[in-house]
């Protein structure tokens, strides 16, 4: 399962970088979305894949009896998803505004502020 996840994450990262290297700003934003999802999956996979072992302590014990899933990375991923959602929705609005102002979907035509 882990190796499958590793391949999936790698493909996502590759796709994200490919999209970000395109000239179109819409594709740039799609690339950013893939990138943040790849990072979230990576954190999720980092904790190790455990099936059917919720981190619950049985009654009468002070620690779980056997190995359980680590809940912390899932909390991290949840936080990261929320943050990425906020930031990416900003990026979508930004791209739309940029298109309205600049009238171009081409990064090569947005060089006024470069030097």
């Amino acid at each position, binding site marked *: 399962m882990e190796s499958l996840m590793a391949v999936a994450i790698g493909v996502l990262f590759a796709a994200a970088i490919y999209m970000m290297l395109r000239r179109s700003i819409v594709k*740039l934003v799609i690339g950013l979305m893939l990138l943040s999802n790849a990072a979230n999956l*990576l954190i999720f996979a980092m904790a190790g894949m455990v099936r059917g072992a919720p981190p619950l302590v049985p009654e009468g014990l002070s620690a779980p009896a056997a190995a359980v899933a680590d809940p912390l*990375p899932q909390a991290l991923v949840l936080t990261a998803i929320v943050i990425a959602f906020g930031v990416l929705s900003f*990026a979508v609005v930004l791209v739309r505004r940029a298109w309205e102002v600049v009238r171009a979907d081409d990064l090569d035509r947005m060089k*006024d*502020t470069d*030097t």
Partner: protein
Amino acid sequence: MNPQIALPILIPLLAGAVSLVFWRSRAMQRLVAVLGTAALLATSIWLLVSVGRDGILVMQMGGWAAPFGISLVADLLGAIMVVLTGIIGFAVALYSLATTGRGHEAFGYFPLMHLLLAGVAGAFLTGDIFNLYVWFEVMLVASFALLILGSEKPQMEGAIKYVTLNLVSSVIFLVTIGLLYSMVGTLNMADIAQRLAHLDDNGMIDALAMMFLVAFGIKAAAFPLFFWLPASYHTPPVAVSALFAGLLTKVGVYALYRVFTLIFYHNPGYTHEILLWGAALTMLSGVLGAAAQFEFRRILSFHIVSQIGYMILGLALFTPLAIIGGVFYIAHHIIVKANLFLVSGIVHRLQGSYRLEALGGLYRRHPWLAVLFLISALSLAGMPPLSGFFAKFIVIRAGLEAGAYGVTFIALLVGLLTLYSMIKLWAEVFWKADPREDADTAPPAPRRGELWLMMTPVAGLALCTLFIGLNAGPLYSLAEASAGQLLAPERYIEAVLGNAGGGER
């Protein structure tokens, strides 16, 4: 309990919320902006005083003991940075009373400013690596919105580069946190440091260190990752520029200092060597970029990059004197650079342009403004007896003592080129004759009160740099004590993990 640790984060958040409540009342938002930043400054000084007295202060959020909960940690470096945040926040709040237009305020300028300050203060005070990521994002979201306030064409183009590269940096940071967690199983920075010391998988640790270097290097605008900065910093309203120039890149530098003194100090021959050459190239490329520019704020933006190099140089040399120099340099730079941007805003208000060819003759009409500019500019270039002289002196001396002659030579050369750039600004903006024959193209002259509001923070910050220069002893001993703490990470670890209940050292 030490409420002063959490207050520098809570006060801006609260002030932001209150100004959101008064969304339609311009006067109330302005009042809250001044009061909130003044309160931030006051509590940050309280924090610095108590950290100086009692050593590293720790607060466990929600009463959860150290490695399990989120700890807020205030050591001297963090406390110094928070005080600087307070100073810059207060100065910019006063300044924006005069420069922020009605349109910008209607779109939430002041709430965003408070949110940005909260994010910056949070990043300086947190002791948890994932929490650091969250504060980075708080700061970034606020900065995104501030950057495009006004929605002009250059702002949009600059913002796309700024947003993209900062998002990439955040993702790299997040991935690194994930990898680090899989190695040590904890997020508390003190706990990470303690556990990494017992691992012997050095290759992986070095790889993680390099990923942190790239993530924070983008935020700090280090070579070769700085391209978003000169593309975007000259586009927003000038008060926003000053806030960004003073604080944002320094959060990246602070994170580098924190991570490379607390967590990754085991293999300096590899990690700090890369930092060293990164610092040299950052200095050089920044100052050469500035030499090719003929627009006020673009020149200043490139100088941010070159000055970041000096701060990283202090970290990279990794001797006590070098760290002292680095901390001193950060303190000096935040004040001076924000002030130069504020001056550029006044110049723009008076003559309606940032392009050097359209400016001139200001010395004749506003000699005091010229003097204030000269104080900050010469301080940036490192002329005695201003604060920049001591900052450069300590870093360069540390470089000579460490035997890093090549890099030290570059640092000296860059100092000279900085002086050239500042003199260029002086000659073009203040000294040469006004290029416009008639005054028709000039914007209407500012009212007296407006000019005073703009000049007061500039004068205050110029006095700060003059004061640091003439009386460098107190700041030097503060930087010395904070370097002592940074080079003895076991004290930080003990302060965080040693007493699980939370409280004094």
